[in-house]
Each structure stands twice: as C-alpha cells, then as structure tokens.
C-alpha cells in the first residue's frame, strides 16, 4: 500500500479528521438546524458544491503536479461570458464554441508554456493571466457585467435537466471525478504527475516529459474551468463576471487544501477533493441556514483557509533540498 498517491498514515489521519469533522458537522446541523436534513436541502448542498468541486478537481491535478492555477475562476467566468455574448450577437453556435474553446486552450497553453519553458513561478503566471483574461474580456469583448443565456439555447435547457430529481451538474461532477480518478490512478501520465510533483528534477532525470506534462495540466485545468462555467450559466441562466473578484477562487484552493492535497505537490487525489467539498458544502449550507451574512461567511472561510494552510505547512514542511530559491 505504499504506492505513490496512496495516502500514508499521517495523511490518512488528516483526511480522516477532516472527514470526521464533516460528519460531525453534518450530524450537528441535522440535529440543530430545522430543514437541514430534508431531501431538497441535501440535493441543494450537493448541487452547491458541484461547480466548486469540478473546479477543485482541475485545481487538484495542477496542485498535485506542484503548481497552482489562480486563473481558473477568471477563465471559467470570462470564457462563458464571451461565449454567451457571441451567441447574443448572432454568431452561430458551433463557431462561437470553437472560438471560446480555442481561447480557453490558448490561455491554458500560455500558462503551461510560461511555467514549463520560461520557468516563471506558476503563481505569478496564473495571477497575471487571470487578471489579463478578466480585463481583456470585460473591456474588449463584452459590454456589461452579467451576460444572459439566449432563450431556448442548450445551455439553458441543460440547467433544467433532472434525473431522479437530481440536477445534471451533480452527475457531471460525479462523472468528472470518476474520470480524473481513473486518469490519476490508472494511466501512465496520471502517475507521472505524482512523480513530477514530488520531485520535478528527479522526474526529469529519469526521462519523464516533465515540461509537456506541465503544459497539459494547465490546459486541462482551463478546460475543466470552461465546463464549470457552462454549468454555472446553465443553473443561473446567465453568467456574472463579478464572480472573478469574489472569493470563489480561494474556496477552490480551500477545498483542495482542506481535503488534504499538500501544496508541495505529489500527494492527494480525487478522494481528498470529495472530502474537502463535502466539508465546505455542509459548512456553507449551515451558515446560510443560520443566516450568517455573506461578509461574515468570507471572514470565517478565510480563517478556516488560514488554519488549513498552517496545518498543511506543519504536516508537509517544505523540503529544503527540492525547494528552489524564489519558490514563494
């Protein structure tokens, strides 16, 4: 059971603790909060974390490879906003989607290229591209903050699809989680991500194509963000680009880190994302039922994220041998 990617005992403990907290919280909410333990509310919880979870899956793949993608939310919101804007101004669906997919891939590839081949720290690259994507689309391509979905378009219809009374994004989340699980666990390139994240130099020395794989991860993350954006637009019938300036991005990092995916890379998997998403979903839902204002929710989430990072820093201390100068 010592294969790379399998949690070791300490990690299992952290993941276990988080899982236990999630269950405790669930139990406490079920007992203490009226209307928590109803079918509708449970579906709402799962639904509310679906988009977050999908984004966290993309983030997880990047973090396991010792990177981070701070442009995910900008790509998610702005790509879909542009797509809908193109549709609203009469571009044909196929062409508009091709444009947007090309744009999303271009940003993903740019991120990957700058990280892999120009050796720029991921955090700066994605911060810059995120800012650029938001600024460029907002100022050049769309006219207002929120872009509605055109009447009768498939994105709108997608939002109404139910199966066993469960909205479609839950299934998409489950399906994507399963796919990422298969990718990380059973494909060669998935295994390589762990090697590259654990020790990039060693991975390169044994002949793993570390750089092309880095590019692949960022492209993957960008495409996952596009999917998440389409689902958001489907359920809300519009996309609001102000979400880029919200704390959604940090929620994603929170889900990944609190679930136990170490920021030093090489550790964690899909299960960690699910555990993290469960905890955050229950927490957000409970806070909403208790009627804590959004501003205070942000404060609480920030405090939890800070705690998670401190714990992460203590459990996964930075390795002086593989940490590089300027790795901040």
């Amino acid at each position, binding site marked *: 059971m010592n294969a790379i990617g399998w949690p070791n005992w300490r990690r299992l403990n952290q993941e276990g603790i988080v899982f236990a907290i999630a269950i405790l919280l669930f139990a406490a909410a079920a007992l203490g909060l009226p209307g928590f333990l109803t079918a509708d509310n449970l579906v709402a919880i799962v639904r509310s974390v679906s988009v977050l979870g999908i984004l966290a899956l993309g983030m997880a793949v990047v973090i396991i490879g010792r990177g*981070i993608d701070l442009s995910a939310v900008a790509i998610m919101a702005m790509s879909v906003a542009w797509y809908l804007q193109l549709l609203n101004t009469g571009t044909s669906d196929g062409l508009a989607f091709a444009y947007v997919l090309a744009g999303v891939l271009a940003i993903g590839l740019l991120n990957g290229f*700058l990280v892999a081949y*120009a*050796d*720029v*720290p991921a*955090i*700066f*690259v994605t*911060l*810059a*591209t*995120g*800012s*650029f*994507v*938001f*600024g*460029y*689309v*907002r*100022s*050049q391509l769309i006219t207002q*903050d929120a872009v509605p979905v055109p009447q009768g378009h498939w994105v709108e219809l997608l939002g109404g699809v139910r199966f066993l009374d469960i909205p479609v994004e839950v299934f998409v989340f489950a399906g994507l989680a399963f796919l990422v699980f298969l990718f990380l666990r059973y494909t060669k390139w998935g295994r390589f991500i762990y090697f590259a994240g654990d020790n990039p130099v060693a991975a390169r020395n044994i002949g793993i194509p570390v750089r092309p794989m880095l590019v692949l991860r960022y492209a993957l993350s960008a495409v996952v963000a596009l999917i998440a954006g389409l689902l958001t637009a489907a359920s809300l019938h519009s996309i609001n680009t102000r979400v880029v300036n919200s*704390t959604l991005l*940090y929620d994603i*990092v929170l889900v990944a880190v609190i679930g136990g995916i170490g*920021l030093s890379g090489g550790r964690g998997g899909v299960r960690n994302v699910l555990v993290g998403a469960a905890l955050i979903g229950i927490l957000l839902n409970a806070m909403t039922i208790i009627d804590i204002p959004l*501003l*205070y929710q*942000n*404060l609480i*989430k*920030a*405090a939890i*994220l*800070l705690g998670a*990072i*401190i714990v992460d*820093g*203590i459990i996964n*201390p*930075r390795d*002086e041998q593989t940490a590089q*100068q*300027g*790795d*901040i």
Partner: protein
Amino acid sequence: MTFRERLQAWRYNLVPDHLVGEILTKRWTDNAIPFLALVATLGVFGSIIPGFFKLTSLQESTRQLGEFSLVVIGMTVVMLGGGIDLSVGSIFALSCFSAVYVFFILEQSIWLALAAALATGLIFGAINGYLVGYLRLRAFLTTLVTFIFGRALFDILVSTYAADVQLSQASSDVLDFIGDGTFWGLSVSVWLAVILAIVTHIALTRSRPGWHVLAVGGSRRSAHNAGIRVRRTVFMTYVFSGFCSSIGGFLIACRLSGAGPGTGLNLEIMALTAAVVGGVSLGGGRGSVVKGLMGAIIVLTMTNGLIRLGYGTGTNQMVLGILLAVAVTIDIRWLKNRHKVLNEVYVAPVYLKMGEMQSAAPGSGTSYELDNRLSAADHIGLGELEGPEDVILDRDDHLYCGTRHGEIVRFFAPDYVKSEVFAHIGGFPLGLAFDQKGNLISCVGAMGLYSVSPEREVKRLSAETARSWTSIVDDARLRDPNDCDIAPDGRIYFTDSTKRYDAHDWALDSIENRATGRLLVYDPKDGSTKTLLDGYRYTNGVCMAHDGKSLFFAESWACRVHRYWLEGPKAGTAECVIRDMPGYPDNINRASDGNYWMAWLGMRTPSFDLSLRHPDMRKRMTRRLPQDEWLFPNINTGGVVKFNEKGGIVETLGDLSGNAHPMVTSMREHKGYLFVGGILNNRIGRYKIGGADPNWTSPASYWGAKP
C-alpha cells in the same frame, strides 16, 4: 595586406566591441530596462493625454503616487528578503479605517488616529511575519489568505460604520493640510514617500539590518550559515511592509476624509506589478528602492492614463496582467541568461598580423633552435608541487616557489628534498623577487603585490593603481599581476597582464589578443602605485638590466621583449629589443655571464597565427564551441632562451621529450645551476649549466655580497 584583411582590421580594431561586454558586467544595467520603460511610458502618456504635465494634474496624481510609492517601498523590501506581501491592500484599507474610526467616530486627535493606523499596520505585518518568518509558511498563499481575511474584516467594518463617519462633525487643520496642503509645492504624501525612500535606501545599502535582508533574499541557507537570524529578518520585512502600508492608509484617510469599499482595492496586484516591472527580482536579493519607485511611476501612469483616456472597466486588470506577465518573464529569463549573454559577448577579439618568425625547429640552424637539454634536468618536489610559476633562491641557497594552493613553499638546501610551507598567501603567487632586506616580494594572481618578510609576515603592498578616465570595467584593480623586479633604489616594477580577464582566464585573453597589459611601479617610500606603460598584449616577465638603469619586460601574445629606460636620455620610454620570436615569452631573469634568461611558455603555431588574422572566426569559435575545442596557443612545448643586452639571441634550451618541462614559465640561475619552473608543471627542474660561474647568485648580483 589584402583588402579583406584591411577591412577586418578596421572592423575589429576600431569598433569597440569589448565595451558591450564590459557594460553588461555592470550591475546598473539591470536598471536600464525599467528606466527605458519609465521614459517610454511617460513619453507616450504625456503626449497623448492633453495637460498630463500640468501642475494641477501632476499635483493630484503625485498625491496618489506618494501613497502608492509608500506601499511599493514596503513590498520592495519584502521581496528583497525573498518573500512577497499580497496583504498590502488589506493593511492599507484597515489602517485607513483605523484612522477614520479614531478620528471621526471616537473624535480623538489626529495624532492618535495616526498611532491607531500605525498600530494596525504593525500588528497585521507582525502576523504575516510570524506566519511566514517563524512558521515558514509559503509567503504567497499565506499573505493571500491574510489579504482575504483583512478584506472581509474591512468590508464588515465599513458597512457597519459608514453612516456614522458621514455624520461625524470632527475636523482638523492638520488633517486638511495632510490631505490637501502642499509644502514647497509638493504634497505631504510625496514628501513622506521621498523621505522613506531615502531612509530605506540608505538602510538597505549601508546598514547591517539592510544587508541582512539582502543576504537572506540572496540565499537563505547561506545567510543562515553565516549566522544571520533569518527568521527574524524575514519577520521584520513584513513588519516594515505593514508599517509602510499603514502610513499610506493614514494618508488616504486624510485625503478622502473617510474609508469606502474601494479603498485599497487591487492595490496588491498593482504594488506587485510595480515592484516587478521596476526590476525587483522575485525570490529576493536583487533590486532596490529606486527600482521599486520607477515601477510605481510606470504602473500608476499607465493605469491612471488609461482611465483618463476613457477605457472601460477591466482595462486596468488587462494592462496589469500583461505588465506582470511580461515583467516576471523578462526578470526570470534575464537573471537566468545574463551570464550566458555576458559569456557570449564578452570575448571581443581583435585583428593582429604576427611578423615573420625564425624557425625554432631542431635542426633548423637558427639561434632559436630547440634542443633536448632540459629533459636531462633533475627534479625537485616531483608530485608534491602544483604550479611553481616562478622559482627563486635566497642567500642561503634555499629554494622558494609559489603553488596553485595559495602558498609559498620553501625547499631546503643543499639537496632540496625537505620542504615546508613558507607562507600562506591565499592567492596564486606568480612572480617572485628578493629585496635588499631579504623580504620576498610576490605578484599574487588576482590579488596584487605582496611582501613576505623573513619572519614570514605577509603584507599587502599594492592592489590598485589610478583608474584611467575612459575605462568601463574598473581598471584600477590589479586583475593579473604577473611578475616583478626591484630597482637599486628599492622601487618595485611589476606587470599587470590584462585588464579584461582574471588570471586563470589567460587563455581567453590570448584568443582576444586585445592590448591591455600594463607596466606599473610601486614606490615603497610613499606606498604609491603608478602606471608607467599601458596597451601591451599581455605584459609578463620583468627583469632589471645588470646596470640597473633599464629593465626588460616581455609582451607574451606579441612575442616581443621591450626595454624600458629608468634613467639616461631615454628615461621613461620603451623600445622593442626582440621581436617576432617563435615562442611566447614569460619571465626574464639575469644570467651569470651578463646575459639574460627568458622562459617560453609556449610556441607559436601557423594555425594560431592565422586565426589572429581572423577575429570573426575566433569570435564564432568562443561562442559556438565548447572550451576544450578552442584553438589556443600551443603550450605543449616551451623552452629557455638566453639573450644579450642588445637583444641578440645567444642560445635556446628545450625539452623535446615533453616529459619534464614542456611549458616553462620561469628559470633562475644559482651557483652554476638553472632552476626551472612551469605554471602547469608538477616539479622544479635543476639543470647544470655548462661553463657557468659556480659562485654567482642572484641576490648577490642585485644587492651585493652578503653584508
């Protein structure tokens, strides 16, 4: 000379290519890119925005610039220490709120408001510093989280108290002055930014805590090993950043008389972009306050300019994103490739047509004809020595030589079997000479002129000369002091072979062949060093003539020996006495019969002579080929040449076997024997000279019989 060669000579001897490389070695070239960007930004926006440079418009924008610069100074210091502080916007906003709260709601004095703002900033900075410095968390994510935390707190506070602030009646002249007044035409915020910038600059460049910050940023582990308290230093940088941001927050509180939801928004990415655009390196150790300020002006001009040009929402983020990505990439690539670029452009060969030479081949019948006599020399210290460049003997017949390990080794007479380290110098001792009092004077490679007393006391005599006016690299420093000799009046004449390369890069100097060698004199009376002659191709050995009125010195890459007159009608001038030798001359020393010994470190080859006429080819060679495939002087064969006062060649000794003395850099005659050294050799040779005076010694020849 063909037309092609004439063109080459003009192109490579007149165009100063070498200056490009010399300029690139300067640290200030790091500033050039941001400075040009600054000029370009100001130029572009100044010309397309009407009234950009008007006083009123400048006053408003400089007020904002003052606040922003304060934040950037804090960010710069954190980045120099190897961290990053994304929470500056939150600190700024919270400090602003603290000041507003104390002044407008508690209705306390403005000074108490200032104290509250500072306390907020310092506490917030201390939290960051504790998390990043002492708990060693990742700076980027940690400060990102404290940024969200601070922002959330600020949003709550502002929404709670906004109405109360509006209703407050509090007012103060001091607050109005800080917010709106000017002092000598400049607003308070600009003055504060200027003062803080100067203080920070001096602290960083001239004080111990500042050096500690740079050391930690440059290399955390080395700083720790050097005994610097790394964690505390990192902690202090964040506290300082909090302090800077809180002053900025206080200023904006005075300017706007309140705090709004937009206070400090996007400030972190602006400050980060400013620092990086200015050229403060990510990862620390490189950068300065001035760079940060240049970046601040660029970023603020761009964002404000675009707003005034009427571009819509999002333009700022777009521009900041592009600026940040481009600046970070340039920074990383520049840091990574600067030395590669430097290596590529530094070597700038010149054209030289060497003169026709007489053959030195055995059997050629010339006076340069090499024989095999040196291969019969006894060896001293075989395998114990590495690199005896010069050898010398004292009045008691003991033998001294320098070694690659930075020591002067003494072999004891009469059999030269036992040896000891006579003195440890630290650099590679090259030329050696005894003065009248028995002090051993040595030219130490890359260090300077040193003296070792008989009591083994090492003293530095000279390490620099006057700097020439037109130099770009510092040519006051002695880069390659090579050989020395002492005049009867005690003055020490010595050579510094090149201004362009350090001693161990002599091969590069031979490939470049630029004439930068010097002859210098050190006067022990006043301790001064003067440059006598400049512009020779690798000045090497120096030897006083027997009468002490002139000296000989070798010019290695031109294969010439010159005579420099100390007195008489030609005093202060040099004339060439031997030209176009077939070998590259090294040290020169006196011989017992009134002639002079000269070492050849290597032999000229037709191929290398030809390459000297093709500087373009040599340039391509150093850029494209690995070093061990370069064409350079043949040092597999050398020799010892005896020449007379007039420059006539008397005889030539060699080692054709190549086993004992392939390369000779020095030889010293002593009591009928010739002691031979080579800088790449592992022994000293002792060769019995036929017919030499068995009582002649060099110290006696210089300073008379034993007192």
